[in-house]
């Protein structure tokens, strides 16, 4: 149902989904199949979301290649990799349900690579006990996005792409819809909905060097936080060990872990296979935080390449194998760097890759602490704890995407549409209009300052002094961002979009830095040079909420693991 008013176009839907990556699309399918009317809002064109960049595969204990694999082992790997602050129930759900989600994707039309017996092929990945990653060469994300897109297009699901949500609307405590701008027309749309799912992905673009695409500016994180949702584990930012370093235009672009999974080795400029010093047992296939810090340490010690990286070498596997197993890596290096990876070594360095933290959710339904608001995918937290296993994010978006769709649908069936406050709408329309058609601070300059600040001060190894410096800059940017404005109108104005993105980017940055200061230990992806050890007293989660006088942090106990699950994992060592 749509109603036109002079200022905005109004729609009504049962379930409103913000974000059309893997999680949002899977949620849309689930909510629709549960009998709800569904509307999806996407910042990019449909099918362009950051999920398309996922390469290596999706983790699911199908045990096709290693018969000893099971959900129990996948569960244990996930908990141990999360360094004991993951939510056990989310890890349990993920490891139990991922195989079903993969098979279902196959029934939706996805074509995974096969074993000689014709079952779904699985490859090795860092810190997975068994070969577990179902993959489509090294373009698994594209296959997932295209398959889900197909399912969406053949259902009666409404979608608005190139749509940017500027605010969640509330009726008392409850979230009852959203308002935003359709980029290609510049029209303002208001959506009234019984439930809202936020699946907007991560915030990697607050860093200068990142593997994340344009969209990942923490939009949903900021929207939910402003609406009162609790965030958790925000200090945990994953650096992927291998991003491209050259040419400058693609600095940070991901080089899949699949390269190491298929036998690639890491060498410093002296030709030494240095992982033998950092992790003699697991070598290149240790956890991402360990390999990333090793790469960083080698570069810092002056054993890096001319462009400030280390070498990743797969040439020994031969041209045929490489072109078949890693076709897009072959093409990526050929097209961008003019390097033939079947004959030459790749230059790589760590790159910001993933936010483990995010909106705190209930494992069963992905409900947040705010009634009517749900979250799934990278924007949600709990599953990955202090570090994420490669391949677990693609499993996450399908498993918890589906659960959020069902959760939101079932909530929406018990409740009627909320009341949308006209004054809130008018105020928001006025705010958006006030950001265009005039002089103001250049929003891109502010964003660049934030990116440099984060990369310089909140990097792979942190310390109090730099974190304090980072926080100061963030405070300053928060004030300056209020003065940002651009010329032009509302229609397809990317400068306006950058102005609108700034508050969420700054919320994400502030949470990361405050949490990093608060966590005076080194755990998983969070490494402090001034507190290099793990502290048993900090085997807890940090919760972030919006207080009257700014962001509040609080330590919260990790949910107690029941005995039957506890015995599956190794005791934590200090």
């Amino acid at each position, binding site marked *: 149902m749509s109603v036109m008013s002079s200022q905005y176009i109004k729609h009504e839907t049962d379930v409103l989904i913000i974000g059309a990556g893997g999680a949002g699309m899977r949620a849309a399918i689930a909510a629709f199949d549960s009998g709800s009317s569904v509307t999806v809002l996407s910042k*990019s*064109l*449909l*099918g*362009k979301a*950051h999920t*398309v*960049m996922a390469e290596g595969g999706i983790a699911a204990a199908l045990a096709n290649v290693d018969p000893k694999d099971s959900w129990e082992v996948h569960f244990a790997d996930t908990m141990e990799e999360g360094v004991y602050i993951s939510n056990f129930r989310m890890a349990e759900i993920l490891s139990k349900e991922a195989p079903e989600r993969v*098979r279902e994707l196959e*029934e*939706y*039309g996805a*074509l995974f*690579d*096969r074993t*000689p*017996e*014709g*079952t*779904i*092929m699985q490859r090795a990945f860092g810190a997975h006990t068994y070969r577990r990653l179902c993959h*489509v*060469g090294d*373009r698994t994300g*594209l*296959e997932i996005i*295209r398959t889900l897109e*197909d*399912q969406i*297009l*053949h259902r009666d699901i409404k979608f608005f*792409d190139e749509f940017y949500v500027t605010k969640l609307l509330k009726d008392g405590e409850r979230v009852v819809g959203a308002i935003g701008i359709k980029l*290609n027309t510049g029209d303002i749309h208001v959506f009234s909905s019984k439930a809202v799912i936020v699946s907007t992905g991560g915030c990697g673009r607050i860093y200068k060097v990142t593997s994340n*695409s*344009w*969209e990942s500016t923490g939009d949903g994180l900021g929207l939910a936080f402003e609406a009162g949702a609790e965030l958790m584990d925000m200090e945990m930012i994953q650096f992927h060990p291998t991003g491209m370093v*050259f*040419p*400058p*235009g*693609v600095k940070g*672009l991901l080089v899949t872990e699949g390269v190491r999974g298929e036998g690639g080795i890491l060498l410093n400029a002296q030709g030494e296979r240095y992982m033998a010093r950092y992790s003699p047992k697991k070598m290149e296939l240790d956890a991402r935080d360990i390999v990333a810090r090793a790469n960083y340490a080698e570069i810092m010690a002056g054993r890096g390449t001319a462009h400030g990286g280390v070498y990743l070498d797969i040439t020994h596997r031969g041209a045929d194998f490489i072109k078949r197993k890693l076709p897009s890596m072959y*093409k*990526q290096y050929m*097209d*961008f*760097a003019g390097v033939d990876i079947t004959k030459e070594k790749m230059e790589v360095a760590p790159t910001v890759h993933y936010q483990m933290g995010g909106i705190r959710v209930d494992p069963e339904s992905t409900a947040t602490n705010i009634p009517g608001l749900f979250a799934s995918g990278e924007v949600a937290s709990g599953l990955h704890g202090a570090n994420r296993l490669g391949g677990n994010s693609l499993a996450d978006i399908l498993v918890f995407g589906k659960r959020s769709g069902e959760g939101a649908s079932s909530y929406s069936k018990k409740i009627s549409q909320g009341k949308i406050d006209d004054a809130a709408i008018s105020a928001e329309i006025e705010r958006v209009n006030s950001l265009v058609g005039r002089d103001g601070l*250049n*929003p*891109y*300059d502010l964003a660049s300052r934030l990116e440099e600040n984060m990369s310089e001060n909140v990097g792979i190894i942190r310390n109090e002094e730099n974190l304090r410096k980072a926080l100061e800059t963030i405070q300053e940017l928060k004030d300056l961002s209020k003065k940002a404005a*651009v*010329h*032009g109108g509302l*229609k*397809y*104005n*990317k*400068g306006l979009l*950058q102005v609108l993105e700034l508050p969420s980017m700054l919320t994400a940055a502030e949470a990361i830095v405050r949490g990093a200061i608060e966590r005076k230990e080194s755990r998983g992806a969070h490494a402090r040079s001034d507190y290099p050890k793990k502290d048993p007293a900090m085997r807890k989660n940090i919760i972030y909420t919006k207080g009257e006088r700014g962001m509040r942090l609080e330590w919260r106990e990790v949910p107690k693991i029941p005995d039957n699950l506890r015995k599956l994992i190794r005791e934590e060592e200090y």
Partner: protein
Amino acid sequence: MESIKVSVYRYDPSSEKEGRFVDYEVPKEEGMVVLDAMKYIERHIDPSLSLRWNCMAGKCGSCSAEINHRPSLMCKTRVDSFKDGKIKVSPIAAYPLIKDLVTDVSQNWDLLKKIPKFTPREGLEKPWKISQVDIERSKEFKKCIECFLCQDVCHVIREHNSGYFGPRHVVKAASLDMHPLDALDRSEFMNKDAGLGYCNITKCCTEVCPEEIHITDNAIIPEKERAVNAEYDPIAIFVRSRRKGGGKR
């Protein structure tokens, strides 16, 4: 610092009578691609420039444009590939212009909705068994990043209002038809309803595909042949006369 000159098409059809090319000077960097230059303009010269880009890595197919009249991805076109240094960037011409370099490609979703979706054969034993060789053909088509450059270059779409869906959509249909467990045959639909008959296999689409999909040879020609065979194959006609409807032809 060395710089390059880029000529960019600017036009807002809702407020301006006609478009024009505007020259911008951008500092040159090693390994620079056209998208880097456009991002520089967006960030430092005119933030109101309308431009679509996402992944910067040739994986999402957002930054399609015509660079010196050739349909290209801006993120994969090296600035130094133009020996005379002249770079002219304009929007893809097959679609209605929204503003500057951004066009309205939404009609593609409407067309994709019309192509019957993947429909597995009935009675398959689970979990499905498929051999690797059987997925290779479909896999080629699944590399498509929906940049719509093939649609842009297609003269049937550009010059004739024929109702031809375009190469992207034939690739889509072929990816489904060549799925080893799919039960349908979309070739008749593609040839009759989706206007594939208008394609006279000039192979322009294949030439511009950034994913190097052999669109004409591997998708278009087989889809054309499939329909022709079904239509004229005497055995097929005989079988059809015996058995009404259903089944993969």
